[in-house]
């Protein structure tokens, strides 16, 4: 079964979001998503400084099998991208919620976080296929 940590928020499109102490949000793809994609071989990260709307595609993760868009879970400005993924995209397969984070954003409205799924709701969604 997929790992769905309780402390994170989720989207229907399989991103996870973690609130940091400085008010930024760290974003990655879930364990379920990495398992579906298989071995990742390329990550096209967003531009630092780029502004994205909620639900806008901002990154691409590619496995041997398929390419998949990563969507901004909430509106904001990208303040950091994970520099290690360029050379070791497989980090996402090994540690999707830790070293495999993809980017951080400074949200426009932090309140949007409440619109996202909690662990129970996301688990229910992936259980229903």
């Amino acid at each position, binding site marked *: 079964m997929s790992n769905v940590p309780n402390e994170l928020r989720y989207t229907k499109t399989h991103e996870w979001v973690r609130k940091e102490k400085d008010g930024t949000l760290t974003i990655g793809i879930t364990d379920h998503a990495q398992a579906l994609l*298989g*071995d990742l071989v390329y990550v*096209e990260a967003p531009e630092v400084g780029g502004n994205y709307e909620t639900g806008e595609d901002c990154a691409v993760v590619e496995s*041997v099998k398929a390419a998949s868009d990563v969507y901004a879970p909430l509106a904001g400005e990208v303040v950091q991208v994970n520099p290690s993924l360029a050379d070791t995209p*497989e980090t996402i397969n090994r540690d999707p919620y830790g070293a495999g984070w993809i980017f951080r954003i400074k949200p426009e409205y932090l309140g949007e976080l409440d619109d996202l799924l909690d662990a129970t709701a996301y688990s229910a969604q992936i259980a229903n296929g």
Partner: protein
Amino acid sequence: MGKRTALYTTHVQANAKLVDFGGWDMPLNYGSQIEEHHWVRQHVGLFDVSHMTIVDIHGENSRTFLRYLLANNVDRLKQPGKALYSCMLNEQGGVIDDLIVYFLTDNWFRMVVNAATRDKDLAWITTHADKFNLQIKVRDDLAMIAVQGPRARACVHTVLGKSAAKVGELGAFFMTMIGAMALARTGYTGEDGYEVMLPATSAADFWQQLIDQGAKPCGLGARDTLRLEAGMNLYGSDMDETTTPLESGLTWTVAWEPPDRAFIGRKVLDQQKQSGVKHKLVGLVMDDKGMLRNHLKVIIDGLESGEITSGSFSPTLGKAIAFARVPVSIGERAKVDVRGRLVDVRVVKPPFVRNGKACI
């Protein structure tokens, strides 16, 4: 539910991710297809290829029939056990399938054809065999296991024990029989090894014995990246009934001599050979980071565009590689349209990797 090989339960127990392949439930991987790929390049991997179709042809006219049916010439097979790679063409020179044919005795040849093309191949073969008075037997009673990698032969020899002496001397592209088991020194990975055809009832035992010797199960995902690195075509992607061997990097598999051997499709190939073809299959290497995929457009200065027929990631090279069908006058550079971004690629002659080492 798809068709299942004799090793289906074995795959399920090994936590394989199963996918539909040509109507069969087959393992895509057993965890990580990239690790499986490396394991074959460095050690020894096992592939269940029992979904492929084994066809035995019996009768004194077998050789005459195959001289007519295949674009390569079975008269190149002089020693019993010798194998030959060939295309089977339609009247237009298009490729119905690619296959390996083994010469066993004067009255017995064996062909191994693809799984997804099974029905049309068998229909084509039996229709044309009609006037040759042959017996065509589909060997669904056999399973097929490919053991591939630098340690593959040693691994098989250990499992065979005393009877290994006979296979130890087997040359490349030769088959020999040990009891009900046929061992061929062939494969689809660019590594040394065997393809073993054996009674389906003993497949699971043999598989386990190989695993006990350090072989790891590998899925169709790794098989695809291995064959692509090795420069081997995949039927349905790199060639099909609308392309001839000359447009598919397979000219080397067409036997032109003797000129009076009137194999099916020859007329069109002779014309193409004389007037030249417009397209050919080449290798592409992307040195930048990213991925090449089937059907992406290849953009070439001053020429019409081409198309990627097999694109993937090469675990050995750590970069994206592909086969592409392009105009014959392509130079050493091209660009590929990756989601609207034009990425530079080098045009190379496959293989990309042989016997574990980069060739490009």
